[in-house]
């Protein structure tokens, strides 16, 4: 079995200090993993391969299985891993203390691989929590910064909270006699009550890892805190492993989910998508912005999953297959472009030492290649054709359009609303990345660091270009990806989308030609062709001379770059529109009286409802109880004795009144 191989070798290798060999090794192993899983998916009628090791929980052993779903997620994991390793070959040199990164990076990869192949509750949870632990260690790499320590703390607590939720869920599915093997759980039929509980717990567990609102609070803290290649892994890959856990539990282990589960997941997904992107719009820290975007994309994926659940509950297999394919496709896409974008931010960070967009700007001229691939990533994540982000959202829309056939009224009311939310989040994402790219790479540099930046190293560029190429490929030839996803959907739903590879012109047809179809390749060709045509015509028959001149700017050329729009000012109109609802945003203008020379100030306060309504109260509660109980630490011996005495008398009284 591959992943165990990864673990073994990784464990063997981990202690050696030098950077190159470790990342090389990770790269090779990840590529091998990709190849293996890919081979499994390509193979016609693949048979799931099982394996049991005599480790882990005694009298059960550790089961591992490789099936379609696992194989697909293995590809996602190892693709991300390979890219991250490649990137780290260059980026790792900038690391201040690599010996805090090197041991855990391979272990982190191994943990994620293990989660995907684990086939019994114990090894699943072990790998899951191991993944959390190693990633926590990676978050704590730059531990001298108090903010990072807080991030690590919030992260590890949320992670173990999620793990405990999953643990309870598995405990339910395994039953009192402890049938922890997935095969046993599948065979076991679960009562509705148990199914409901398990679903809720699984949603909490996986959601807290994936960053589902309101369990997302750790994510924008922890992801930026880690080194960029790790952030890419956490954001692009680890959240996907969480998705894997959810899909595995709901579709595979529980069997057909009830329709209301689809309702819940849909609603949460929609809210998550919009809130995530709104938060991202308000951010001015590049990596935090990307992290919040992960929240948004998780929402989109959960919308797809929710649709699939709803369809499955109504026995609309084809539709369910479409929805699930859309979700998984988006998983794939997001792992690609989110890694790409985090790499980009890492490159920027390495070149300028800045993450605050307020200090950046104009990098497009000093780092042309980076800015180009970053642009590709932005277009992809903004769901614009002809790149891959659009395809998965398009598929999701197609799935939504099938949902009027759902029988439950609640669903038929909710689904269009979710569709609106999805569209809204897509549009906002575009706005957000106009902001991110425009403020960071365009305009004039806002600091010397930005002005004197320089292009990053070859490895980093290579990693980013590979990912960009993959984004383009998945965007213009989505048919192949969809076909590669079919084994998973067949296993989980017993249905698949129509085979795409025979469709003429390589276009994709979700249900029927007459209904809807999309051909990324042609659109791409048309756009490039007509753009080139226009350029050629104009340069051929009309002028092509060009003159550089100072910016006109309506005749008010401003010397200082500070007059450019910053990320805050860019987001201001959108904050006006949504801020009131989403953040309870308040603006306070402090305008000096005439003749007063002090500058006017505009202060904006945003609130994160999740923190203010859930987490801070909880923390306060815990501390309050802790304070109350703490008195017990400083009692006199007599009082302690009276405690003992009280318990004794209480027990005796109970005994005296015990019915025989």
């Amino acid at each position, binding site marked *: 079995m591959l992943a165990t191989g990864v673990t073994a070798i990784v464990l063997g290798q981990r202690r050696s200090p030098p950077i190159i060999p470790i990342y090389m090794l990770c790269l090779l192993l990840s590529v091998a993993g990709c190849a293996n899983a890919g081979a499994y998916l390509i193979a016609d009628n693949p048979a799931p391969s099982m394996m049991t090791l*005599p*480790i*882990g*929980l*005694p*009298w059960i052993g550790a089961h591992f299985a490789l099936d379609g779903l696992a194989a697909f997620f293995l590809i996602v994991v190892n693709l991300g891993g390979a890219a991250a390793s490649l990137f780290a070959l260059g980026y790792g040199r900038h690391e201040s203390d690599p010996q805090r990164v090197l041991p855990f990076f391979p272990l982190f990869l191994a943990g994620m691989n293990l989660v995907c192949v684990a086939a019994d*509750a*114990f090894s699943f*949870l*072990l*790998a899951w*929590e*191991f993944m959390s*632990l190693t990633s926590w260690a990676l978050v*704590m790499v730059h*531990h*001298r910064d*108090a903010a990072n*320590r807080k991030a*690590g*703390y919030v992260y*590890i*607590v949320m992670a*173990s*909270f999620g793990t*405990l939720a999953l*643990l*309870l869920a*598995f*405990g*339910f599915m*395994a*039953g*009192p006699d*402890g049938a*922890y093997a997935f095969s046993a759980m599948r065979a076991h039929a679960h009562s509705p009550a148990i199914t409901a*509980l398990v679903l809720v717990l699984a949603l909490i567990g996986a959601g807290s890892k994936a960053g589902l609102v309101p369990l997302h609070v750790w994510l924008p803290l922890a992801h930026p805190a880690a080194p960029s290649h790790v952030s890419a892994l956490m954001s692009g890959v680890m959240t996907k492993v969480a998705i894997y856990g959810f899909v595995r539990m709901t579709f595979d282990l529980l069997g057909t989910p009830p329709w209301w589960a689809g309702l819940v997941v849909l609603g949460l997904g929609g809210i998550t998508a919009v809130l995530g992107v709104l938060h991202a719009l308000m951010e001015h820290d590049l990596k935090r912005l990307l992290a919040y975007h992960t929240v948004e994309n998780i929402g989109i994926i959960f919308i797809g999953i929710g649709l699939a659940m709803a369809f499955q509950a109504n026995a609309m297999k084809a539709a369910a297959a479409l929805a699930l394919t859309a979700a998984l496709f988006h998983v794939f896409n997001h792992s690609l472009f989110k890694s790409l974008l985090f790499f980009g931010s890492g490159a920027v960070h390495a070149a300028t030492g800045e993450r605050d967009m307020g200090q950046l700007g104009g990098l497009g001229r000093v780092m042309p290649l980076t800015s180009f691939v970053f642009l590709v990533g932005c277009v992809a994540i903004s769901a614009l054709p002809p790149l891959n982000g659009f395809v998965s959202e398009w598929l999701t829309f197609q799935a939504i359009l099938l949902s009027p056939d759902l029988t439950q009224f609640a669903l038929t009311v909710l689904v269009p609303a979710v569709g609106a939310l999805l569209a809204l989040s897509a549009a906002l994402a575009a706005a957000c990345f106009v902001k991110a790219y425009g403020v960071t790479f365009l305009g004039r540099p806002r600091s010397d660091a930005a002005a004197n930046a320089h292009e990053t190293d070859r490895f980093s560029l290579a990693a980013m270009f590979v990912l960009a190429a993959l984004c383009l490929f998945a965007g213009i030839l989505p048919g192949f990806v969809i076909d590669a996803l079919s084994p998973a959907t067949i296993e989980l739903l017993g249905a698949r989308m129509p085979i795409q590879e025979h469709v003429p012109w390589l276009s994709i047809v979700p249900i029927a030609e007459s209904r809807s179809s999309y051909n990324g390749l042609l659109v791409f060709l048309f756009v490039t062709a007509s753009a080139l045509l226009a350029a050629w015509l104009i340069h051929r028959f009309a002028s092509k001379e060009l003159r550089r001149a100072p910016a006109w700017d309506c005749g008010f050329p401003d010397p200082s770059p500070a007059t450019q729009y910053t990320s805050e000012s860019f987001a201001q109109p959108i904050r006006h529109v949504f801020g009131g609802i989403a953040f309870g945003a308040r603006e306070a203008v402090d305008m000096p009286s005439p003749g007063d020379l002090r500058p006017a100030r505009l202060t904006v306060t945003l609130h994160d409802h999740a923190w203010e309504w859930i987490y801070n109260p909880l923390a306060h509660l*815990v*501390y309050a*109880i*802790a*304070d109350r*109980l*703490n008195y*017990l*630490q400083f*009692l006199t*011996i007599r009082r*302690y*004795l009276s*405690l*003992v005495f009280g*318990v*004794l008398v209480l*027990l*005796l009284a109970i*005994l005296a009144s*015990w019915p*025989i």
Partner: protein
Amino acid sequence: MTAAFNSLIHPFAANAVMLILVIPAASAALLFAVRDYRRSARLNAFAAFLMLLAALALLVEQPPPGDYLHVDDLNIVFIILNSLVGFTTSLFSASYIAHELEIGRLTRAQLRFYHAMYQLLLFAMALSLLANNIGLMWVAIELATLTTVVMVGIYRTHEALEAAWKYFILGSVGIALALFGTILVYLAALPTVGEGAAAMIWTVLMSNAGRLDPAMLNLAFIFLLLGYGTKVGLAPLHAWLPDAHAEGPTPISAVLSGLLLNVALHAVLRFKLVLAANPGAIAPGPLMVTLGLGSLIFAAFMLYRRRDIKRLFAYSSIENMGIIVFAFGMGGPLANFAGLLQMTMHSLTKSAIFFTVGQISQAKGTQRLAELHGLTLTQPVLGWGLVVGVAAIAGMPPFGIFTSEFLVVSSTFARQPLLAIPLVIGMLVGFGALMLRLHDVAFGNPGGPDHPVKSSYIPMTLHLGLVLMAGIYLPGPLVVWFQHVAEMLH
């Protein structure tokens, strides 16, 4: 007494059992005599090692139960664990105590005393584990208590003496209650078993537990649970535990957390078995579950406001004891197995943590959490050792406690979902507190002085290695053995 043995117990096994008792007793006497503290430390470790060998010998052959001593699967687990941790701790204490002498916290006289007491403690614990006679068991535990009281107070600081005094008073009351319970058990057995020593022999009690007077047994169990529960450190009987851990020498904290709590727990388990075997008596399970949950949640919250690192981990011991008692209270093969595993893992991990903490406090010259920062930078081995230890004790994979907590929670949830909720909450709260402190201690910008650490890392690494192995792979024989014990406890 020896006469009784030779007549009752098969020679070879008798030797093994005898050795377990004689070695520490003899070496205790010897150590009182030895002047040079280095030699005495070496002797101490050597004796502990011999004791470990003797304990392992019990695996080979177990003698038939005698009037006073008996060996069964249950107490073999405890004995081997005890002698193992006792041995490693003696290794650790050798270097630790030497350092204490250098910085002048202890005098040579006290050192002699210390080593002798150490062996005496081992002897007392071994005796109470091996005792087949509940009166003997009681005596042994009283002896162990008194020894540890003296050890806790050995620094003669104001806090140390107060802690020792508190421990002494509460301990004496506990002892008294336990004795009353023991008498009640005897009275319960009197009508059926008849007068004389037979009515105090555990095996005899077990064999006709069904016919003992239930009401009397209930009464007895309450007293025993409270009496020995004080030693286990169950809230609200725990008051002595944190101070005793915090103020005593660190090796003693390790022994207290790692061993003495288990010994008391063993006593409770014995009587639980008697009670469980009696149809008329109340089920002991709910009582233990309640106490366990209470201790778990209470300790979890108490962790937040701690200022002293050793007190912190003392409370985490209470927390773990709560989980263990909860597991045994739940009963059933899975939960019992989990309880045993958790107990073993806790002993190993917690003593390892105390080793680390002791070295840390020696390196930094303080136990105050507020003054410990960024240890992974200044003392990489200690810092990361602490990280690993805390991760293990907090139930993180791939360490053994994860396995046991997995079993406890999942099996509980499958049977009593409502019980699992507070359990999980308690675990989570405690986890949060431990992690919070760990972040401050192990990470961040270092401060304060840094003395080099001379004591050896071997015990710590050994324990953590074992815990790690248990988390990934439990050897088959061990599993079979634990399962058998779990069945027996069922």
